[in-house]
């Protein structure tokens, strides 16, 4: 049964050119990325101007949209440097910029024809605020992560504007844009890309009035958002775009999120429901990437005490690691894997195809390019393994993390 519902766009993070290709290949409808400046991820690889050309071409050739983040709270000096960059983005025909500051919105409107999306960093939380931003020329609102899906539907209706919501990933505990701990304790402007993640620190809390002290608390750390179980609510609410957080995260994360959510959306489009064991399989897949405990946070009800991730961060028993990427295949001869994490002869690996079931393989033979036989790979090497029929170039290869 084919469904006539308007399906939301799946928007995946692209922290680098490689990750953009991964996101696109694994099913994202759109990607968001940063240039070398003006975003909130100074430590990410981000894109040089030349990588942007290649990335935009790669995405557009496959019908995937590209949004560029300019969501820092920019200072005057930044604004003067911004003009040249946004004109360049306009020439590249990127599909939108994601902005959090009114001065940046107006600068983009003044100098380009680019679409402007309002970043979650602006903490737009209600329809009155959305109406204001619409008047300022914004065409889409990425709502604050405190807004429920039901509230988002109301905002969309009241303000008559495109709505984007986060569906998966790490969460700020503070209202986005309302945390300056890094600014005042580490001299790093969190709202221009210098967040030091002080909210993930371990704290001791002293309640003097209660004569009580509590040690080893991660009281400001949030569990990760996982909206797979309520994906149908997003669809029914008419949310225009569902966004995966994580430009700093791994290739495996980018691949897994793009694959799982795109397959889930396709399934719903075809069947009109999620009444299938596939849902359990997708959930298992989401657990295979490194993550804090998942929670729906504010999507249905207000985030309560159960959404605090009050523990030290560690790899879980279900975690997988990316061991490499397929970089070449020669029909019926061999495939080449660019190794990121070491593996051994005899190990069981999984190749994550762009669509469909994972390919499990046991490594029974490995060579270096000069045909030298090896029993253990090293990171940053290229190894040959026997041909695997169903795999494709850029497939991610993963293995279970052994505790």
């Amino acid at each position, binding site marked *: 049964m084919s469904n006539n519902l308007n399906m939301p766009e799946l928007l995946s993070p692209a922290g680098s050119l490689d990750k953009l290709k991964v996101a696109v290949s694994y099913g994202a409808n759109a990607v968001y990325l940063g240039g070398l400046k003006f975003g909130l991820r*100074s430590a990410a*690889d981000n894109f*040089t101007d*030349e990588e942007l050309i290649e990335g935009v071409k790669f995405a557009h050739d496959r019908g995937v949209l590209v949004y560029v983040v300019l969501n820092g709270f920019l200072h*005057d000096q*930044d*604004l003067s440097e911004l003009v040249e960059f946004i004109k360049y983005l306009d020439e590249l025909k990127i599909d939108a910029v994601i902005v959090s*500051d009114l*001065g*940046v919105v107006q600068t983009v409107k003044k100098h380009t024809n680019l679409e402007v999306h309002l970043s979650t960093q*602006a903490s*737009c*939380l*209600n*329809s*009155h*605020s959305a*109406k204001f931003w619409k*008047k300022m020329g914004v065409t889409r609102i990425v709502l*604050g992560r*405190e*807004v*429920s899906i039901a509230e988002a539907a109301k*905002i969309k209706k009241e303000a008559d504007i495109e709505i984007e919501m986060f569906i998966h990933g790490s969460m700020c*505990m503070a209202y986005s844009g*309302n*945390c*300056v*701990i890094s*600014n*005042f*304790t580490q*001299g*790093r*402007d969190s709202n221009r890309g210098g967040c030091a993640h002080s909210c993930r*620190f*371990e*704290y*001791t*809390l*002293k*309640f*003097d009035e209660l004569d*009580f002290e509590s040690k080893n*608390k991660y009281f*400001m750390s949030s569990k990760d958002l996982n909206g797979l179980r309520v994906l149908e609510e997003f669809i029914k609410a008419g949310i225009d775009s569902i966004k995966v957080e994580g430009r700093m995260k791994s290739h495996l994360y980018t691949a897994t999120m793009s694959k799982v959510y795109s397959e889930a959306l396709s399934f719903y489009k075809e069947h009109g429901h999620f009444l299938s064991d596939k849902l359990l399989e997708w959930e298992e897949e989401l657990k295979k990437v490194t993550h804090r405990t998942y929670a729906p946070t504010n999507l249905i009800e*207000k*985030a*309560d*005490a159960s*959404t*605090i991730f009050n523990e030290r961060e560690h790899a879980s028993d279900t975690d997988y690691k990316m061991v490499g990427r397929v*970089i*070449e295949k020669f029909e019926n001869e061999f495939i080449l894997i*660019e190794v990121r994490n070491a593996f051994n002869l005899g190990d069981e690996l999984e190749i994550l195809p762009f669509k469909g079931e994972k390919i499990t393989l046991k490594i029974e033979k490995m060579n270096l*390019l*000069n*045909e030298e036989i090896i029993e253990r790979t090293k990171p*940053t090497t*290229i190894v040959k393994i026997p041909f695997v029929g169903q795999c494709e170039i850029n497939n991610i290869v993963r293995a279970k993390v052994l505790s």
Partner: protein
Amino acid sequence: MKFTTYINSLHELSIAKDAGAEEIIISAKDLNRFSKLSILETNKLLKEAKKLEMTTLLEWDVLYTENEIDSAIKSFHEIDLDVVDRVRVQDLGVMEYIFSNTNKEMELILENGNHNLFGIQTYETYLGERLKKIILSIELNKDKLTEYIKELKTPVEYLGLGRILLFYSPRKLLAPIISGEKEGINYSENSYLEALGESEESPHKGFPIIENSHGTFMFHIKDLFLLDKMSELIQSGLQFLRIDLRFYKDFSLLQKITKAQTSDDIQEVKELYGNKVIRGYYQINKSDVLFKKLKNYRIQRKDESYIGEVIEILKGNYLAIDIKGSTNFDINSHLKLITPEGKELLMKIVSMKDIKYEDITEVENQKIVLINYMSGVWPKSQVYLN
């Protein structure tokens, strides 16, 4: 330059009047992050302030999601707006609501970000004549502050003394700890809790933390103190200096502050105040200079003659290059390699193979090529035609 301050009681109102304050900020707990006043108490205080011919500023600074703002709007309309001169707002939804649904004069709190003049002037243009004051961020240093005061048509307010808010979350973060560990205490949705936080991962100890019905707030361990810069602030043309004594034990300090004339007077205020203080970013804001250290720019590609990146090194055998650029090269090309440590190495290609380990002399459609080994090269070294 005039002083503006928060008041929470008739006693504080009387002190503020005696101290010469011409305007005061009042609010109700339903609308304000830290007020403990009911609507009834707020209305009473506003009326008394008007009787004293003071300018009354109702601060509505809580951030609201769609469902919450409806309830806050109801609370707002329970306020006796006849005794409110202006509404101070921060949430842009609240700003838009007041602007579109009332005829009240407004003050706009732009302390959160808003570090460029173009943006601030856009707000100024949008709100027009009804905008009576802009509250600027303390992350703007004195030069920027002076520049903005000159350029803006609207009077400016800047924090002169008070706590520095670092973190605002709608989630209750303290109550779960108490509920889980301290027996015999039950906390309701509207409980008020205070704590001091410290982390071994930060050199700063004793962050004041408050939880109330609006969420959890964390402040800097030191308060902002710019009273010793008063003459400089007056010269800058600043119209309003905010003295925030909401978290200080003795409101009567306001009288000493407004009457302070000499550096000795200021010093006395500082000593009486007692809390640790800083000037924040008042002198200079260099909060972006550390960004250069957050990643290795040497492994970032620079084009023109860019070829690609070394992805594998087999000692004594070959370097594998992932071709990423569009620069042509062949077996006799001279290369420049820049290692992740920043070392520049020069080499000539004397042998070249494809990934089937077959000799080639030029690059055709290959994505990866193997060239002769050179010592000192590391994976992620960037390769350029020299």
